[in-house]
């Protein structure tokens, strides 16, 4: 009986110990971090894996530390597909350095890197992050012109905003790491979009005008070059022709002269007669005695040959 009582006491003790062990055991999952407080005071941080703590003197706080995202300028109503969004006009309206308005929608991705800081340094960390992100992107945007924001510097803006948010988050000790800032839609307000589009159109027009002019130049300069070469070739042809003609004619003349020199009088006579022989046929001929010309001439139907039968 006494033995039984002793054994039952031991069993009870073991059972109590086992129960306590069960209560004291906990497991941190791969996507979690934990913090143990002992009598209210921070004791230790625990990562993924099996752990023990001492309730009720110790208290465990655990949080998932996966990547969270915060949306600015819009909210996803339905993750879809198809997705549905709701606009937040005030949230996306920003003023650029040249005092224009640009609507910027963006997403900030962050995760808890230090659960101790996250839990104990600030209250309402998510809302803080939203505040900080909005202040940061407006600082970055306000140092640029609207053209810079809309065009070339989008990547740069995202990076700078990320760094700026991280800076402020670190200053507040929020225990977060900003993974990425992704600019979604960056555009001028609806009311002025047409004007912006027209500027883009004007740039296209400019390019088009220049291309057309270049096309014109590409067409007429080669044409002119061709014409110039043609002109030169014509002139070359003329020069050669003139010289060759001259050489031909003088060669003939020289030959003739050679013959003429042998019998000048006869040759001269022959040439003369041959010429007249060649040209007189077909002509109207009037033979008048010397000195009779003055008397005959007035009666001749000069210049009216075609009409005489």
């Amino acid at each position: 009986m006494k033995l039984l009582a002793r054994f039952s006491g031991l069993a009870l003790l073991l059972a109590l110990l086992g129960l306590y062990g069960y209560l004291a055991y906990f497991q941190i999952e791969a996507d979690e971090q934990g913090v143990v407080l002992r009598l209210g005071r921070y004791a230790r941080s625990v990562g993924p894996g099996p752990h023990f703590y001492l309730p009720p003197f110790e208290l465990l706080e655990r949080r998932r530390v996966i990547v969270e995202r915060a949306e600015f300028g819009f909210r996803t109503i339905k993750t879809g597909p198809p997705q549905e969004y709701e606009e937040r006009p005030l949230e996306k309206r920003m003023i650029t350095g040249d005092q224009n308005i640009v609507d910027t929608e963006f997403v900030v991705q962050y995760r808890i890197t230090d659960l101790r800081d996250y839990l104990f340094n600030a209250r309402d960390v998510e809302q803080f992050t939203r505040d900080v992100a909005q202040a940061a992107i407006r600082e970055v945007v306000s140092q640029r012109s609207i053209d810079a924001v809309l065009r070339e510097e989008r990547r740069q803006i995202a990076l700078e905003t990320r760094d700026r948010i991280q800076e402020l988050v670190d200053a507040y000790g929020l225990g977060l790491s900003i993974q990425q800032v992704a600019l979604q839609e960056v555009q001028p307000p609806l009311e002025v979009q047409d004007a912006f589009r027209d500027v883009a159109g004007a740039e296209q027009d400019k390019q088009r005008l220049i291309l057309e002019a270049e096309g014109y130049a590409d067409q007429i300069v080669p044409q002119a070059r061709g014409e110039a070469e043609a002109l030169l070739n014509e002139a070359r042809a003329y020069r050669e022709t003139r010289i060759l003609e001259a050489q031909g004619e003088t060669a003939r003349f020289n030959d003739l002269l050679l013959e003429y020199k042998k019998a000048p009088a006869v040759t001269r006579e022959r040439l003369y007669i041959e010429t007249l022989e060649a040209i007189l046929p077909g002509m109207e001929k009037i033979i008048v005695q010397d000195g009779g010309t003055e008397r005959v001439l007035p009666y001749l139907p000069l210049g009216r040959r075609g009409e005489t039968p």
Partner: protein
Amino acid sequence: MTRWLALLLLLATVAVAGAFCIVVVDERETGFRTLLGGPDPLGAVLLEPGLYLRVPGLQSIDIYDKRLQRFDADSQEVQFSDGRLMEVDYYVAYRIENPQLLREQLRSQERLQSFLDDNSFGPVRDALGKYPLDALLSEQRGAVIAEITREMNEKLQPRGVLVSDVRLRRTDYPEGNLPQTYQRMIKERERFARKFRAEGEEQALKLRSKADLDSQLLRAEAGRQSSELRGEGDAKATSVYADAYSRDPDFYAFQRSLEAYRRSLDAETTVILSPQMPFLRHLFDQAGKRRATP
């Protein structure tokens, strides 16, 4: 049996008493302990987290959140030194630094909210009013914020609250001014559009006229060269002719004249011939005897 019962009763009493006597100040919290209403001489300000004892009825402990907290202000219209009216929306990051001062002067955290509201807008409006809007859109922003923070702390630190940051979340044109702003933006865009188109025309004109110039120069140069070439041809031909013909100018004149007659006299010509001319002398000379050539 009665002994067991007595033990249980004792334990229960201790537990209940403990619940009344023990206060745990969490890592997130700070406390203020009073003794009979006044600050506890054993230590009123409980900054460190841990286990604290109190005698119920005599002592009480007020707990406050000591983490960094945010006060979210409503957006307000502020006039900048350049006269521009803007709607600003800011938040204040603060923490409770001294629970005793807070407890004595503001009592609760809820009342702190309205106190923050009262005391943040003034400094924000005053500080922003000293600068033009451009300053806020530039590197000077940091200095403006430091000034606002300093002014707020002047009022809040004596109440146990430390403002660590005031930051403008949004700076907007008031809704009423948006149409003008849009108009200005549109005008500016129109200017750019006109400029781009004019630039296009400018460059196109330059390119076209340059092309015209180039082609005209090409033609003119070709004209010059071709005149030279023609001249060269003429000169060479002339010298060839002169060389040949100067060997017997008289025969040349004769021969060339004959050639010219062939070319210039045709069937349309009427000639008046004289029997005396050498060509006809045989026609009227009955003797038919030879004569010397003329």
